C-alpha cells in the first residue's frame, strides 16, 4: 500500500533500543525542527532510529525527509491520509526498537528527552538494567510538552498556554492519580511489545482523542503510568481561535465514540456533566441539537463580538463569550455523532453499563494503624474505591472513578489532604479526646443532691 524505505547514511544497529515515531501532515518546517532537535540528543545516536509517518502530505515533506542529513537512522513511511492514529500504528509496526517513543511533529524535544524516557522505563522495572531487558514492560511514560506560542498571541493563545502548563503541573504532583485524559501522545513512551499487545491506537478516532481512548485501555490493563518530568519538549502551538473551536467539535464527537466504545465512562464524560446545566449552557445544547444551522450563524456573529471584546480589553466578557461558543461547538460535535446513533444525550449517559465490566474493588482502610501500613495495604490490593476510617469511626468514602487508574499507596496522603481534610481533622479531634480520657481521667457524672424537702 505504501512504500517504506531506509534512509541511507547512518549505520544502524540491527535492533536499536528506541524507535521515535513522528506522525506528520503538511508541517514540513516544524518537522525539520523536530528532526534537528533529535540530532542533538544526549542519548547515543546509534541506539535509536526515527520513523516519520507522512500521512497524506502534499507539501514536499517526503522530499525534505529524504534530503535530511541525520546522524541517526531515519526512515520514511507514507500513507494516503488515513489519520494520526493509523499513522502512529503504521510507524509502530515498522519499528525495530524495543521502546516506542511517540513525538508529534510540532513538538521540539530537549536534548535529554530520549534519555529521560529510557531512564524512566529502566527505573520502573524491578532490577532493570536498561532497555535491553525484556521483562514485563508495562510502563508508559508521559513527558511534558511545554507550550511555546507561535504566531499571533491573543487572549485565547495565552489561555491555552496556561491550560497546558496547568495540566502538566497536575501530572507532576507527587501522588497524582492518573486518568485516561492524562495520556497525551505528543511525548509518550511505551514498550513496543506492550503497544502491540494492546492493539495500538483505535483508528476510528481521527481528529481528536485517540490518545485518550488508548489511555482508557491502558488504565484498564493496569499499566503503570509515569510522568517523566525530565523529558521536556516544547510544543509550538500555532492555533487560532476558530480552529480550536473545530477541535472542540471533534472532541465532542470523540467523546460520544468513547462512550460507545467504553460505556462505563459515560457518567464521567464532559457531556454528562453538562446535562444538568441551566441557562446559557442549556441554550447551547438545545441549539446544537435542534437548530444547528441557525446556531452556526448566531455563533458566527458572536465570533465578531468576541473580537470586539478583545480589542477593547474586556477580558471577562471575552472569557464568558468564548466559553459559551466553545460549549456550543462541543455539543455540535456530540449532536453529529449521536444523531447517527439515534439517541439523545440523556439516554446515552443513562444507558446501562457494560455487563462484562468487572465489579469495582473497595478497600476499608483504618488510619489508626498508621499511614505507612495503609499505604502498603493499598499497594497490595490496588482497589478502585476506598472507605476511610479512624479507630472504627468513618472519615469518608472515595467512590470508584471510571477511567482512573487503580489506587496506589502514594495516592493516599494527597487524597487525605485535598478531599478529606476537614473530616479527618474532626475525627482526629474526637479520637484525641478519647485517647486522653483513656489515659487516665475518670468520668465524673453530674449528680446534684436532691433538695431535701
Amino acid at each position, binding site marked *: 500500500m505504501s512504500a517504506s524505505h531506509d534512509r541511507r547514511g547512518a549505520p544502524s544497529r540491527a535492533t536499536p533500543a528506541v524507535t521515535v515515531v513522528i506522525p506528520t501532515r503538511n508541517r514540513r518546517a516544524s518537522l525539520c525542527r523536530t528532526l534537528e532537535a533529535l540530532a542533538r540528543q544526549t542519548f547515543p545516536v546509534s541506539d535509536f532510529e526515527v520513523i516519520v509517518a507522512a500521512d497524506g502530505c502534499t507539501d514536499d515533506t517526503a522530499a525534505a525527509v529524504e534530503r535530511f542529513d541525520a546522524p541517526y537512522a531515519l526512515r520514511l513511511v507514507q500513507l494516503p491520509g488515513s489519520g494520526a492514529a493509523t499513522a502512529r500504528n503504521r510507524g509502530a509496526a515498522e519499528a525495530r526498537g524495543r521502546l516506542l517513543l511517540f513525538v508529534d511533529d510540532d513538538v521540539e524535544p530537549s536534548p535529554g528527552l530520549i534519555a529521560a524516557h529510557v531512564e524512566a522505563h529502566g527505573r520502573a522495572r524491578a532490577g532493570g538494567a536498561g532497555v535491553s531487558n525484556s521483562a514485563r514492560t508495562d510502563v508508559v511514560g508521559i513527558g511534558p510538552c*511545554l507550550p511555546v506560542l507561535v504566531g499571533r*498571541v491573543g*487572549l485565547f*493563545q*495565552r*489561555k491555552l*498556554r*496556561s491550560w497546558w*502548563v496547568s495540566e502538566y*503541573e497536575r501530572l*507532576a504532583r507527587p501522588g497524582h492519580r492518573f486518568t485516561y485524559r492524562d495520556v497525551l501522545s505528543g511525548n509518550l513512551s511505551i514498550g513496543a511489545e506492550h503497544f502491540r499487545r494492546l492493539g495500538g491506537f483505535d483508528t476510528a478516532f481521527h481528529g481528536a482523542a485517540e490518545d485518550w481512548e488508548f489511555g482508557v485501555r491502558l488504565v484498564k490493563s493496569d499499566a503503570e503510568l509515569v510522568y517523566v518530568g525530565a523529558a521536556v519538549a516544547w510544543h509550538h502551538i500555532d492555533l487560532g481561535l476558530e480552529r480550536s473551536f473545530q477541535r472542540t467539535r471533534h472532541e465532542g464527537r470523540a467523546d460520544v465514540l468513547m462512550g460507545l466504545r467504553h460505556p462505563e465512562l459515560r457518567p464521567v464524560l464532559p457531556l454528562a456533566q453538562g446535562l444538568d446545566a441551566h441557562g446559557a449552557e442549556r441554550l447551547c445544547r438545545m441549539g446544537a441539537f435542534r437548530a444547528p444551522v441557525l446556531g452556526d450563524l448566531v455563533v458566527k456573529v458572536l465570533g465578531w463580538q468576541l473580537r470586539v471584546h478583545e480589542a*477593547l*480589553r*474586556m*477580558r*471577562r466578557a471575552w*472569557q464568558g463569550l468564548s466559553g459559551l461558543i466553545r460549549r456550543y461547538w462541543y455539543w455540535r460535535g456530540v449532536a453529529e455523532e449521536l444523531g447517527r446513533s439515534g439517541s439523545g444525550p440523556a439516554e446515552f449517559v443513562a444507558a446501562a453499563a457494560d455487563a462484562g465490566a468487572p465489579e469495582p474493588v473497595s478497600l476499608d482502610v483504618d488510619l489508626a494503624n498508621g*499511614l505507612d501500613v495503609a499505604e502498603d495495604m493499598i499497594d497490595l490490593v490496588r482497589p478502585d474505591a476506598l472507605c476511610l476510617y479512624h479507630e472504627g469511626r468513618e472519615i469518608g468514602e472515595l467512590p470508584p472513578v471510571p477511567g482512573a487508574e487503580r489506587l496506589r499507596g502514594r495516592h493516599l*496522603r*494527597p487524597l*487525605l*489532604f485535598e478531599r478529606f*481534610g*476537614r473530616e*479527618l*481533622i474532626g475525627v*482526629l479531634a474526637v479520637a484525641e479526646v478519647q485517647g486522653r480520657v483513656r489515659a487516665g481521667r475518670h468520668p465524673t457524672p453530674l449528680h446534684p443532691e436532691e433538695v431535701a424537702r
Partner: protein
Amino acid sequence: MATAVVEVELLDPPARIGGLDGYAAALVLARLGGRPVGQATLPVVEGSVDVGRVHEAIVTDSNRPLWDRWLQLRLGIPDPEPAVEKATVAVCTRDRPDDLRRCLDALYPYLEAGHELLVVDNRPSTRETERVVAMYDGVRYVREDRQGLSAAGNRAFREASHEVVAFADDDTVPDPGWLPALLRNFSDPLVLCVTGLTMPLELETEAQEWFERYSPFGRGFERVVLDGTQMNPLASWRAGAGANMAFRRSAVDRVGPFEEVLGSGTPARSGGDHEYFARILAAGYRIVYEPAALSWHRHRRTWEELRRTVYGYGVGVYASWTHELVVGREFGVLKMACGWLIRDQLPALVRSLLRRPGRVPLDLLLAELRGCVAGPWAYLASRRVLPMTGGWP
C-alpha cells in the same frame, strides 16, 4: 501608646508573653511549624499577653492556612524542593545606610549559603552606602545613577548572575526562611514573579500604627496563585507589595523590564512594582503570593513622612493607571478608579467627617486624594523627563 510586635510558635507556645511593659497592645504573629498562619492584635495587660487569647483569636476552625499546615505536618507531606539552587538577592537602596546595614545583617547568611548578594546604590549623595557595603565580605556593589527605583531594579536584572532575582527593600528585614520559600514556587514555568508576606518590623509610633492599619503590605496567610488569564490583570494589588518580591530574569525578555517612567524616585512617586505585576498578568503569566516568604518592613516613623507616603501612593496608583490606559489601551482602569473611589475612598471620607469610631484621620485621606488628582499630571511630567522602557503586551 505603642504596639509591640511579637511571634508565637503554636507547636510550642509559652503561657504568657511578658516583658512588654510600656506597650498598650501587641501584634502577635502566629506560626505553625515555622510557617506564618495568622495574626492578632491583643491588649497588653500588666506587661504581658495571655497566649490563650492568641489561641482564641487565631486557632479557630475557619483558619484554613492553619489547618492546612497542621494537616500537612500530620500527614508528613513535605514542602516542595526549591526549583533553582542559587539565586541573586538584590537590595536597591538610596541614602539609607543604617537601614541597609540591618538588612544586610539579615541577608548575609544567604551569601554564606551560596547565593549572590547584590546592592544597587541608586543616585547616592554620599559614599556612605559604599562604605557600608564594603564592610560585608563578598557583597557586590553597583552604582546606578539613573533616576528611579525602577532603573535600579533593571540594573539589578542586568548585573545578576543567576536566573532568579529576589528583591528586598533596604528598610526590610527578611526572615531566615524567606528565600527558600520564594524559590520553591518557580517550578511552574509560567510563574514569572513570587511575592511574599510583609509584616511591620515595629509599631512604635502612631504613624507606623496608622500605616499598618490603613494600607498594610500583607495579603493574608493563604498562598494564592494569580493567573493572568483568569483574573483582571489590572487588579495587581492582590499580589502584594514590592518590598518583598522575586522574578525570573527571563521576565525581562518576555514582558519587558521595570517601567522607568514610574516608581519611587520619579515624578510619579510610586507604582513601578504594581505596573510590572499588572504587565506580567496581562501577558498571561502567573504571580504567586507566598505567605511563607516572610519579611519585616520598617514603616515610616513620623506623621509627616506617613502623609507624604500616602500622597505618593495616590500619585503612583493613578500614574500607573494612566500609563496602562495610554500605552496599553486598558480602558478597565476607568472602572477601577471609579470602583476605588466609590467603594473605599468616599465611604472612608464620610466616616472620617462624621467622626465615627474606627475612622481614618482626615489628613491622610485628603493626602491620598490629592495624590490621585495629581497622578496623571505627574505621569506626564515623568514621561517628559524619562524614557519609557516597558511596553504593554
